[in-house]
């Protein structure tokens, strides 16, 4: 009981007290069933702000910025678009393909604009590791440094992305 009480104070109440109304709105938009089926936080018990802070630290340690990662992801997506969303091989190392479906997604940070539901999959042909991301992911990474929470459907682990896609 004491443990539960402590956890309640440090997490739920802590979050309520720390977040501004705008941050609470953003966190609410990241919940499952608001913009996407599973939401943006997955099973992560960290706040979205803490996820951003932690991922920024990871990137800094690797000598990369979120903007560089976003540029890289956009580059792969553009190559795929140039191949009419078919499959393309880049430098004999990466295979890239994009699926586009009807509709758009808004940014959970309430930025104006909509992001087409286009899903790009990049596979490192040497390691066989694949990453799938949407146009919204590129925006979230470039502008908000947000890679999504652990086990979220479109979570991109920054360390893995840097290792496999650069």
């Amino acid at each position, binding site marked *: 009981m004491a443990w539960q009480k402590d956890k309640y104070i440090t997490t739920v109440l802590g979050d309520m007290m720390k977040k501004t109304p705008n941050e609470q709105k953003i966190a609410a938009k990241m919940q499952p*069933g608001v913009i996407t089926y599973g939401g943006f936080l997955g099973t992560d018990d960290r706040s979205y702000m803490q996820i951003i802070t932690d991922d920024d630290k990871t990137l800094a340690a690797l000598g990369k910025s979120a903007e560089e990662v976003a540029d890289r992801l956009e580059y792969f997506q553009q190559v795929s678009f140039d191949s009419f*969303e078919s499959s393309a091989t880049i430098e004999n190392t990466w295979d890239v393909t994009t699926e586009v*479906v009807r509709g758009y997604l808004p940014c959970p940070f309430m930025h104006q604009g909509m992001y087409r539901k286009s899903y790009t999959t990049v596979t490192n042909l040497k390691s066989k590791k694949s990453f799938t991301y949407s146009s919204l992911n590129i925006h979230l990474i470039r502008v908000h440094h947000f890679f999504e929470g652990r086990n979220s459907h479109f979570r991109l682990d920054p360390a893995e992305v840097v290792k496999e896609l650069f």
Partner: protein
Amino acid sequence: MFERIVTDITVMSTIGVILALIMVIAQRWLSNYGEVTVNINGKRDLTVTGGNTLLNTLSDKQIYIPSACGGRGSCGACKCKVESGGGPLLPTERPLLSKAEIEGNVRLACQVKVKTDINIEIPESIFNIRRFDSVVEEIIDYTYDIKGITFKLTDGQTIDFKAGQYVQLESKPYDKIKQKVIRAYSISSKPELKDRIQLIIRQVPEGMCTTWVHKHLKVGDKVNFTGPYGDFYLRDTSADILFVAGGSGKAPIKSILEHLQEVGTERKMTYFFGARTAKDLYLTEEMKAFEEVFTEFEYVPVLSHPNTEDNWTGKTGFVMPYFKDAIRDPQNTEAYLCGSPGMISAVTKALKEYGVAEGQIYYDSFG
């Protein structure tokens, strides 16, 4: 410590509830706009109670403007001309409107509040849009991620649409989804079937409506939709036809072909369907069967990346190089395209290079 925090929160929450109640009561008194008039196209007056959004006000009068986000101001589908009475353009509208649209008094119906008499312009075709009650009659698995669902209209309702048009399906709350979600899907059945429609729906990763369709919807379920919408439909000419589709873009083409089978046609038609691998092909036999129905029809599936195990002997690569043999007179050719924007853009460019006029290229780009 814990009890103190809980007490503080309770006090704050109580104050919040009281303030909210005061606001609701104040709104009831202060936001009473009374009866106002919505004039549509200078022809028709609707007397309505003011205070609601234009989108909902019209919807209450069974006039359904397209909206893919349920009125949250995020899809931009509910654009209409507001000539007067709409109030100032809101910051929520500006990003979804072009400069020309803003200058032309185009607004988002979901953001405009009807507070005074208002004059609007909407396409006449919108008056044909209705909200339908239906039950799921049949669900077919076409591929690992594409289903065909037939919705039978209830209570003797019938629907009039042009082959190629779409409806907006309303999902029900399920799992973590607490509210209905509205999404657009092309009708894949022929318009001659007036008491039912079929939709072809592809599972979208993390899609709220498609997950409902693919994981929860079952035969016998009650479902609502509105429609018909869209200006992608078969033009009544004698020109040769080139159909080009990819993925679930097959739906409106299927509707057009089934319609032509009903009414009969002598038009020369070639249908290119682009897919990645053999497992992405579906309804192949049904499309091939049209070669026996029409005097001049060919169905041409093209795989961009067939797997070795596909043992594919058909056409490969992009669809565009194969147009050359299908176009006998570019000036007497119409093209109907349905698929991703990239595919539409590439196909349009190729068709223009082959001499097909831009005005004869019709498309639905999954917009």
